[in-house]
């Protein structure tokens, strides 16, 4: 991701369709990976990915370079769309919160395993310490607030905060080692 991404988003904002195509070519796969991890089903992931790029197209004005990197902005759109999808699906199918957990923890099971390279599923997050992986899963892939994580895990809120930082520091270290 470079500064040129900000220009691509600016072009998208001005209605340049080919600019959106370039963003898709560069980051569609990465966003798809995040979405798949959250929704766990290929057909749902396709729907969410399309929804994500339509939202990027419509809301390019909402991107503020002062608030973060372009990819972070796009990834948050993808995450929110995927998490919404999971929650809607869970409510539709079972009407219970437990289903969300099942769906999210369905990663690596059944049909998903057929669609994704096993090596990629066992990604950097998978190599983190269990307590760090759990926090990243809950915060990043399930969209839990820190309070919800604290309630869910029984950890003090302060511990959740410091452990989230530790988890991301470990992730950063892992990425450096495996670059």
């Amino acid at each position: 991701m470079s500064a040129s991404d900000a220009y691509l988003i600016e072009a998208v904002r001005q209605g340049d369709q080919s600019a959106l195509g370039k963003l898709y070519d560069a980051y569609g796969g990465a966003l798809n990976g995040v979405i798949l991890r959250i929704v766990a089903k290929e057909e749902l992931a396709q729907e969410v990915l399309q929804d994500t790029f339509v939202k990027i197209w419509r809301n390019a004005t909402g991107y503020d370079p002062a608030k973060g990197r372009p990819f972070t902005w796009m990834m948050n759109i993808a995450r929110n769309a995927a998490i919404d999808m999971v929650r809607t699906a869970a409510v539709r199918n079972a009407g219970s919160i437990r289903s969300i957990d099942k769906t999210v923890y369905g990663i690596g099971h059944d049909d998903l395993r057929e669609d994704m390279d096993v090596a990629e599923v066992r990604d950097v997050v998978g190599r983190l310490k269990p307590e760090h992986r759990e926090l990243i899963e809950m915060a990043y892939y399930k969209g839990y607030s820190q309070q919800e994580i604290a309630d869910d895990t029984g950890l003090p809120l302060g511990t959740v905060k410091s452990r989230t930082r530790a988890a991301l520091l470990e992730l950063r270290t892992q990425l450096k080692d495996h670059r």
Partner: protein
Amino acid sequence: MNAEELIRSGLLEAYVLGQASPEEAALVERMRASDDPVREELDAIELALEQQAMQQAVAPAPKVRASIMDAIKHEGGKKEVPVIPIQREHKPFNWMAAASVAALVLSAVMNFMQYRELRDVRVELAQLQDDRSVLAEELKVQRTSMERTQQQLAVVMDPRAEMVVLNGMGAAEGHKARIYWDKTASAVHFDALSMPAPPEGTQYQLWALVDGQPVDAGMVSLEQDTTGLQRMKDVPNAQAFAVTVEHVGGSPTPTLTAMVLLGQI
């Protein structure tokens, strides 16, 4: 919170993960704009998640791209024009209202403070006026006293004045009085000195003895100021002065048995 504390707090991670409250997000964004270390840390966190996502990339089915491009083509003309938030139109009014309220509150506070100040000043002024009246009264008393003293001094120091000492006789032995007599002006001033108060219902009366005959020279008053000189009746000529105890108001002729002081010239 300084940059170092913010970095260590874990709030930057929470912010990137979308867990920060609006207030926390505003803080992070403010610090990101102003502090290089905060910006660098945020970039590192975002980059880590970005790299992690890139490593995990899963190529979507080719039909998704076509589907997206088709969807936005149909949206082409409908691309939303940025809407200026309604709030913005109200903002100046709200600011003005807030400013008015603030000004009103400030004004009320200042009015109250000024009222208190005025009240204090009034109290102080009243006190000062009282003090001034007291001082004026004291000055008047002092001036009167000084004038009297000057008058008495003038009498005493007058080179024409002759001093006659009256000594106690009989029961009044040891008591003294003085007369300053200006023969030229006939003026007589009596100084009671150490005379005791006369018995109840009586008063001292001064007599000038002129050619053997007593002439009334006035009643001696001890009540107000025994140390001062008292102006008596004019006496143009006399060989002696005497003081007798008489009924209040005096007698036409002296009761010689009641003579207490005598001063020969």
